[in-house]
């Protein structure tokens, strides 16, 4: 990426039906999902029948009855992929109805002008006229959040261009509260809808999907972020 990110994180999120109590540190060790420093440095936030939250040395695991999330905020991001795939190889019968691969990046663009330029290119202000201008012609607001989605309709459902059900969403916002001067926040959500005829898929399919798709997801989403970064230099 042409601008070094100030903050970056990646995650894999699954929706389905989970038993949070399975995801104890000892189970993660026994299944060889968290070994060595990963296991020794686990900090337990909570272990409860409704939710388990663990801090790993490089990220965080949170599982409730409907949602599984493993997030990394330290490179290499491949660790979230390995963690997810191993978990659901060990739990192949788990009902899973959707999986999302996520990349979140905050990067500085050097000036408010460069940041505004990104907003102006992605959402031109001509239509809005006086709504985002003062009487003196000064800027009065701008893009707060923009989501662009790749999807088509297939069999009455949203589908991706690769033919699988789901969508890819790219969200662009000014970075606020994350200590990134003149920052831009970009989030890519690569969502796979795994329902079929009203029935959930399973952990086996989800782990195969994530193992197969992760590298391409990282490459594609970093390319999208890099394209947005390129707008900063055109200010």
């Amino acid at each position, binding site marked *: 990426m042409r601008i070094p990110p100030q903050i970056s994180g*990646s*995650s894999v999120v699954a929706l389905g039906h989970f038993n949070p109590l399975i995801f104890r540190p000892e189970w993660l060790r026994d299944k060889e999902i968290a*070994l060595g420093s990963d296991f020794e440095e686990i900090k337990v936030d909570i272990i*409860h029948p*409704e939710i388990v939250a663990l801090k790993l040395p490089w990220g965080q695991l949170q599982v409730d009855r409907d949602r599984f999330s493993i997030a990394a905020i330290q490179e290499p991001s491949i660790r979230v992929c*390995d963690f997810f795939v191993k978990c659901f190889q060990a739990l192949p019968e788990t009902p899973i109805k959707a999986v999302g691969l996520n990349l979140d990046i905050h990067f500085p663009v050097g000036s408010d002008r460069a940041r505004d330029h990104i907003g102006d290119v992605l959402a031109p202000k001509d239509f809005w006229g006086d709504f985002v201008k003062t009487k003196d012609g000064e800027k009065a607001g701008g893009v707060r959040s923009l989501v662009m989605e790749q999807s088509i309709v297939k069999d009455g459902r949203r589908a991706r261009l690769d033919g699988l059900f789901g969508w890819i969403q790219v969200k662009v916002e000014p*970075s606020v509260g994350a*200590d990134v001067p003149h920052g831009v926040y970009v989030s890519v959500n690569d969502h796979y809808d795994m329902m079929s005829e009203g029935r959930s898929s399973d952990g086996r399919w989800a782990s195969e999907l994530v193992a197969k798709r992760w590298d391409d997801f990282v490459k594609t989403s970093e390319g999208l972020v890099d394209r947005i970064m390129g707008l900063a230099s055109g200010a």
Partner: protein
Amino acid sequence: LTELWGLQVAPEQLSSNVSSSETATPSRSGAVPGAGGTRFNKDVLEAWTRVREQRSPIAQDYISPSMKNDDLKKDFGIVHYRSVEREFPREVKLQEWEGQVQEIGSNYFSARLVDLTAGEKEETEEAELPLDDLIESDRALLVPGAVFRWIIGYRYMYGQKERFTRIVIRRLPMWTEQEIRSADQQADELHHALFGDRSSRTATLGSD
């Protein structure tokens, strides 16, 4: 099929706005996934447990007003808050390799490397890396054949900028069914290229 503002939507979606993805990172522009901490409201969690156990209208009496009706599924009594001090320093990755361990010496180990930053897919480099670059508790994972990621970058910490190197042994998943099928196919293709198809192979063997 209807097209609205360049976005194709399914008929059933017309009645409501396109919602943001449920599998997206819950963070917004001011947050970082996995950063910060989590507080738990014990009363809400216990009420949740009672609701699940009793599954009766009376259970509504135990839960907080914010949990009732539509909010019930969203409120686990959990508050995610940003840490006062960032737990992870800013890091900039300069280069990343995937490596496979070849030999392990007393101070160094040798490995074959794939330069991921350059977009390579094949092992094109060899290197000797110091064992000291590995976290002590990960030493047991270092065996010939082990796959690891090696990152070089710099980090900002307490106003200082410094180079760092990180070696992470991958906790590799088992082979997926698709990988096994793909390997089988490649083996078949290789066999076919070397010996021809099965029937001609048998004939050749039989003629010897």
